[in-house]
Every structure is written in C-alpha cells, then in structure tokens.
C-alpha cells in the first residue's frame, strides 16, 4: 500500500499530527505520489517543533530513499538521495578521507532536512551553512523531477535552501564534501569561568570546529561558565564507537528537576581539569554526542520539551547575556545548552545563521518554560536577532517575519513554485508564512 495512516510527532514531542504517510523506496514511486497527491516531504523528523508535521494532511517520508548515486573520490563531489542521513554519509566516507561539509548536532538528520533547514554545525564560523556546499538540488514536482542549481535557478535555489520544504519534495542533491585528515577528532577542552571569558575565547578561536557547552543554571559570578571545545580532524587508530543505548520509557518529571540539573552541570563542568586537556575522540562522538542515546527526547517525559535557539548580532552580546541571566534565574534549563559564535554564512532566503552568537537551551514543556521562551523571543527581536525554525514550536506569526529580512523574496518564489499550497506544514500554518 502507498499510504499508512498514523500518528507522528516532532523531536520535542510537544506537537503531533495524524494523517496518511507514504514512504516511497524508488524514484518511480515518488514520481507517482508527487503527481497524483502532492504533499510535503519529511526526513527523520529531527525538527523539534512542527516543521515536520502536517496534521490531517498527507506527508511523504523520504527515509527509504537514502542511496549514494555518485561519488567522485578525486574531487569529493557527492550525489545522494535526500533521505540519506548525515551520520551514514560520515560513516561511509570518513574512512576514505571525506566528511560531510557541515554536520548538525545529530547524525540522524537527513540531507533533505539539512537543506530545508539550511543547518549549521560546529564549523559554521569557517565553513558556513550546509546549503553553501550544495551544488544542485533535484525536486520531485508534480510534472516530474526539476533540477535546481544556484547559477541557473538562483531564486528557487535560495527559496529551497532553508525553505522549510515549501518548494517541493527534495529527491536528491549534489554536495561538495570536505577533505579530512582522518576519521578521529583531536579535541581540546577548556574550562571557562564566566561569560566575558567565554565570548573572548570564542572570538579568538582559530580551530576548524568550535563549540561551547554552557551551564545554563550557573548564576552570579559563575554566569556563563562552561566548557569550550576546539577540534581538528586527525589520523589515528581508536576503537570503534560503542553501540548506542536506548531510553526505553518516558522518564518521570523529577529526572530533570532543578537540583538534579544543577548538580549534574557542576559535575560536568569539573570533569574537565582546571588546566584543560586534549583528548582524542571518535568522530561520531564529537559531532553527535547525544546520538549514542537513542530516543533521548524521552528523558523529558510524556509532555515533551522545547529548545529555544536564537542568534544575535555581535554588538548585541549584552542582550544575550541578559537572556542567559533570565534563563539561569528561572531554574528551568536542562543540561543541554550550547553557545557558539556564528559566521555570516547562509545560503537561503530563510536561513537561520547570521554573524553573531547563537545560544540554544532545552526546557521541559511546562507553562513557566513556555512563558520564559516567549520572553526570550521578544528579547531576541529587540536584540536584532532571530530564532531557529528547526527548533521553534511556540512563536507567533508577528515575531518571525520581522526576523527574516528576505521573507518577501522567499514568499514570492514559493508562491510561484507551489501556487496551490500543497507543501504546507503545521509550522507554516502556525506562523502564517504562506498567507499574504
């Protein structure tokens, strides 16, 4: 059968949808669906909110179309089906000396999803966003495959990259892979005592991969303390990564109570010695630390969780500090909090990145946390920043449009590509992105 009617949800498990899902395995099957019953495409549903949902409508699950169509070992040019996961690509090609050019925090994200969200990684300050390394996208339109390149179809390309899937299902893409020394990571970890030091270290970092873990529960003098990780690829032999563990049930609420989180964060921070250290890590463990724990989203219990992620311009660093102060004061944050310096690189009209600092913090789905996220969104607007639609589940239409200055160009191109609104998702409806 082509369609399976089922319930599904986003990674944060707050929003869910009910409707028929198709999961084509061949291009010919996808072509038939695209022609007869056009619908938005979805990958591994690693978007936290409702970007990957189409309640009461149809959805095309692309995860079974995940093959390497062509690879040139001399140049690193890769043509791959959109359902392929970034972690799989890493696994196949890292031993051959090539890496996906940009890797988000989870290896389960698909190529199609990485394009539709124009994702960034720990190398954003140098390499830019994922879409900047995409040289061609094939969309499966009702009339058949449409090949889109940045040179020939500039507007459609920019509306597709970071375009939330609104220009049609991405069937395959060509990427330029990145040459790597080997498939291990040499990681320098440094304890950071407080906010100002953190920003200074991020600004000064010359590493290819840089990311900061931040203790979002630390207050006062310790506000903004964390661990700075700087890494380069290297060659060497370390044992293969251990098989992942699975969270078998929804955790009770107290698993992430303020005391537990505060205690955990303090211990996690002290784990790195005072003088810092350099360790060799398996490449998977560095890029996708949480993927080892399958279904870790269940740690937040049945009601799910939110991630707030914003980016603010460099000159608005103090606004970001004030936001962190508010988060730390609330006692609502979970241990998962990340601070990173972003470069200007972005490839689509609706791409998230801007030059500045990005902060991402997870919160359990409670009324107080939703209120706090609302305040943080407002603060982001004042700071001239923007929130990340791959994570968002709560914003309203008024907040978001103003954050994305190229919204009008995106809207116009999308309207032309999908005049009948076949590819609308719950996120697009919530934020009224397809209504004039």
């Amino acid at each position, binding site marked *: *059968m*082509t*369609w*399976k*009617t089922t319930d599904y949800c986003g990674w944060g498990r707050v929003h869910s949808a009910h409707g028929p899902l198709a*999961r*084509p*395995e*061949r*291009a*010919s*099957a996808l072509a038939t669906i695209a022609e007869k019953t056009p619908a938005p495409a979805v990958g591994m549903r690693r978007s936290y909110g409702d970007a990957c949902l189409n309640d009461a409508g149809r959805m095309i699950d692309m995860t*079974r179309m995940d*093959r*390497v*169509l*062509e*690879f040139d070992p001399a140049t690193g040019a890769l043509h791959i*089906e959109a359902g392929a996961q970034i972690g799989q690509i890493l696994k*196949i*090609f890292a031993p051959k000396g090539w890496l996906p050019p940009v890797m988000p925090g989870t290896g389960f994200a698909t190529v199609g999803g990485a394009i539709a969200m124009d994702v960034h990684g720990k190398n954003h300050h140098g390499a830019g966003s994922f879409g900047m390394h995409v040289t061609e996208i094939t969309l499966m339109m009702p009339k058949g495959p449409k090949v889109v390149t940045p040179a020939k179809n500039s507007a459609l390309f920019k509306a597709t990259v970071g375009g939330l899937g609104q220009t049609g299902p991405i069937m395959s893409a060509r990427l330029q892979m990145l040459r790597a020394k080997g498939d291990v990571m040499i990681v320098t970890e440094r304890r950071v005592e407080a906010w100002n030091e953190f920003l200074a270290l991020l600004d000064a970092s010359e590493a290819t991969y840089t990311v900061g873990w931040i203790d979002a529960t630390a207050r006062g003098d310790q506000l903004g303390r964390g661990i700075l990780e700087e890494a380069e690829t290297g060659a060497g032999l370390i044992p293969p990564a251990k098989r992942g563990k699975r969270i078998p049930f929804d955790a009770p609420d107290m698993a992430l109570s303020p005391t537990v989180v505060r205690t955990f964060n303090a211990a996690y921070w002290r784990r790195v010695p005072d003088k810092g250290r350099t360790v060799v890590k398996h490449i998977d463990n560095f890029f996708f630390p949480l993927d080892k724990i399958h279904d870790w989203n269940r740690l937040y219990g049945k009601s799910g969780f939110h991630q707030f992620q914003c980016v603010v311009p460099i000159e608005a660093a103090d606004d970001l500090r004030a936001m962190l102060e508010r988060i730390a004061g609330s006692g609502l944050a979970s241990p998962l909090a990340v601070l990173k310096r972003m470069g200007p690189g972005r490839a689509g009209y609706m791409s998230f990145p801007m030059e500045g600092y990005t902060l991402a913090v997870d919160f359990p789905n409670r009324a107080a946390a939703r209120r706090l996220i609302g305040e943080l969104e407002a603060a982001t607007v004042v700071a001239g920043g923007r929130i990340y639609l791959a994570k968002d589940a709560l914003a309203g239409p008024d907040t978001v449009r103003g954050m994305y200055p190229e919204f009008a160009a995106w809207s116009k191109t999308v309207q032309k590509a999908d005049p009948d609104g076949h590819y609308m998702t719950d996120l697009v409806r919530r934020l009224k992105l397809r209504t004039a």
Partner: protein
Amino acid sequence: MSQTWIILGATSTIARSFARLASDSGDGVLLAGRDIADMQATASDCAARGAPLAEVIAFDARDAASFSAILKRASDIDGTLSVAVFVGSMPTQDAMDADPSLIAGTVTDNFTGPAIFLTMIAPILEARGNGTVVGVGSVAGDRGRIGNYIYGAAKAGFHTYLSGLRNRMGRKGVHVMTVKPGTVDTAMTWGMEKLPFLAQPEKIAADILRGANGQKNILYTPLIWWPVMTVIRLIPERIFKKLQV
C-alpha cells in the same frame, strides 16, 4: 578470495539492505531484477560502500529466457560465486480467490521462477566447489492459513526445493540456506494492520549475512519466529482448521 553475490529481486527492500551489507564487507554484487533505473542507484550505493563489483542485469522471474544472460555474466566473474534469492510477490488471498489466474504468476514469482534459475546455475557453483545459495522463503510457508495460503503454498514449495538443493549441493561444497522471515517493514507491508514482531529490513539482512557466513541451514529471522512457528506447526490439523491465525 573475493566473493560476488548474484542478488535476484534486487529492488526488494530486504535485498537492498543485503546488498549494502555485503558491499560493506567487501563483497561484489550483481543486481538482478526488473527496474533497471532503481537497481543502478543501488549499484552506485554499493560501489561507494566498497563493493569491488557492482553491476545490474535484467531478470524477470516469469521470463526464463532472461536467465541465460545472467549465467553468462556470472561465469565470467572470478572468485566465489554466491546467489541470494529475494524474488517474490504477494497478491492478497482475496484477489487470488476472485481471479484464480493470478495463482500461476504467484507460484512462478515465489517458487518455480527462482527454482528454474537455481537449477540452471547450480552446475556453475558446483564446478567451483564453493559459495552459498540463500533462498528467502517465508514463515507463511510453514503452514497453510486461511488468509494467505496460495502465497504460503508457493513458499512451501520453494522451501522443499531448497531442502533438496541443500542435499544435492552440500556434497559439492556449496552451502544452501533457507531463510524464513516473519513480517518485515517493507514497501510491501507498509500500511498493513496488525503485523506481529515487525522487523526492520537491516536486521533481516544482517541475520541473513551472518547466517550465510555461519552456514546455517534454516534461518528464522527475527529468531522469535522459530518458537512461534514450532508451536503453530505442532497444532493438530483438526484444531488448526478451526483457528484464525
């Protein structure tokens, strides 16, 4: 010595996973099936994963004339030759009850087509004195049930054929393994209701490759189907005929 798998029915979900895993471990793959364009995508995937040989060739279980080209290509491949048969089709019992002319095709796809091919290629494998034949049957072939007995009968025929082939080829150094998968999460079962112990194709493919390396004779996968089917086989017919399982 390098091994090459001739994979019949290479567009099936499990075959695709199997081809990948075989490529990961350095084996070659000769993909045989009807959708050439789709198999070409799988072949590229296998080549990128390390398969020293990744080619496609036309195969149609209902057209025995298509077999000789495969035999010819296979004879030219050096090293160990192995065959894995994933061919099959499963019209619903209702469809076949309404149109009995569908039965012949179902039997050809699941039993006689593969049997003719294997009988033709057997001497080539025997002459080399090594290699493996993997035949994918089904737990549905273990007992005739009201909801699926023509498909089951075809698979049962294939099981018995494989048992005989094992008896014959074993003495020439070629191992034959019968695989009996339960319900698998494939395009064929997508959207079906009430599928017990539904398994992922990657798991089935990994079990098959491990079973083939370990020279298992009959492989139930996932393993839970071995006790389940043992019990189902033991139910006396006078009781079984009244059951709806």
